């Protein structure tokens, strides 16, 4: 079970409180987690990554295990504690603007 923490605005859009949990098949990567997230919550398509190119939106960041994973290639395996559900995968709205 993969745990994902969404920023407040996206929790509102997805109609969820607190963490989201996902079943993810295969290797646990940014891409596979986001694919599973968007499959379960299609209203989030386009809010985290571009719907066509699947590139991360500029002001969205990915953190896990106290690391900034935003610039990792999308198919790089996520840290083991994320894959085991010990630690969440954090989707964060960058601190910018007002």
């Amino acid at each position, binding site marked *: 079970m993969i745990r994902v923490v969404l*920023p407040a*605005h*996206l929790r*509102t*859009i997805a109609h969820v409180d607190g963490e989201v949990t996902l079943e993810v098949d295969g290797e646990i990567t940014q891409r596979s987690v986001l694919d599973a997230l968007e499959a379960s919550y299609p*209203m989030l*398509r*386009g*809010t*985290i990554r571009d*719907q*066509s190119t699947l590139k991360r*939106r500029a*002001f*969205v960041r990915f953190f896990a295990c106290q690391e900034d994973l935003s610039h990792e290639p999308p198919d790089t395996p996520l840290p083991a504690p994320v894959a085991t559900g010990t630690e969440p995968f954090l989707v964060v*709205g*960058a601190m*910018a*603007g007002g």
Partner: protein
Amino acid sequence: MSGVRVLVGTRKGAFVLTSDGARKQWDVSGPHFAGWETYHVKGSPAAPERIYASQSSGWFGQLIQRSDDGGKTWEQQGSKFEYDGVPGTHQWYDGTPHPWEFARVWHLEPSLTDPDTVYAGVEDAALFRSVDGGQQWEELSGLRDHETGSSWQPGAGGMCLHSIILDPSNPDRIFVAISAAGVFRSDDAGKSWRPVTRGLKSDGIPDPEAHVGHCVHRIAQHPSRPDVLFMQKHWDVMRSDNAGESWEEISGDLPTDFGFPIDVHAHEPDTVYVVPITSDSLHYPPEGKLRVYRSRTGGNEWEALTNGLPQSNCYVNVLRDAMAVDSLDSCGIYFGTTGGQVYASSDAGDNWSPIVRDLPGVLSVEVQTLP
């Protein structure tokens, strides 16, 4: 009893203001989409309980919302706005080629006859259409593919397609306006387009009378006289009597002819409203006095409407999509300010009062007249 529903888009969400026909007591609901920029909210003329809203965020992108109960509840629709084919480039501010990039939906224009059909004007300038209530969007790419497209440049607010007029007498005719390209007209339901800008003059562009490159801020039409268009340009208030084929200036005795919105009285096609703004570098009313100007002669002769509006120390702006009229017997006029006020007049502009004073900065105002 008849009533009105005012749809307000702001920098931090949408608000729905409702009143009976007297337009004295108002119910305010919102913020809907709290914290998100809501560039535009507009109801379907064919099914007034259906309302479309453009919700966007610099962080999380574009969403489209739809209500089927007059704005009480909302359901998220599709938001995949993908340019048709290889988008190519337009000109950037410095004159270099810049790839077309979708930023947001500025304006939603529901069909006059089909509640499921709605048009979206977007930045970077393009026109999209949905025929399934907002779930899927297809670009009408004949506009962006016009031979001048690669020369279009953004205005200070971005290269936005902000005005869409669907001709009520001719379902094949559509007008759009783009900052800073100009006005374009289609006579084949959006397949092909041509600029209709003859008579516009813009100092500050290489050829002041060029076909494209004009920073048109807003166009308006009265449905009973669809060949007559009014325009608030960056500078100049303009009028066309031939569906945009040619334009003449009607700024007349306005204190300044810079501004953003323009609208037409619901029952008097020659009664026009503008909100003069000091200049392109001073986006607030002259002398700190918020004045709507009305012409009852189709332009050139203007009167200041001030009763109930602040006449000192007022330094707000009124943005291009932030004025609307209702169609009750005594025409109501509404506008919103960047300071968060929404003002209403139930007597065609003679007297004004604020419906709300402290909303986030207002981006758009639309009104529905309800049976």
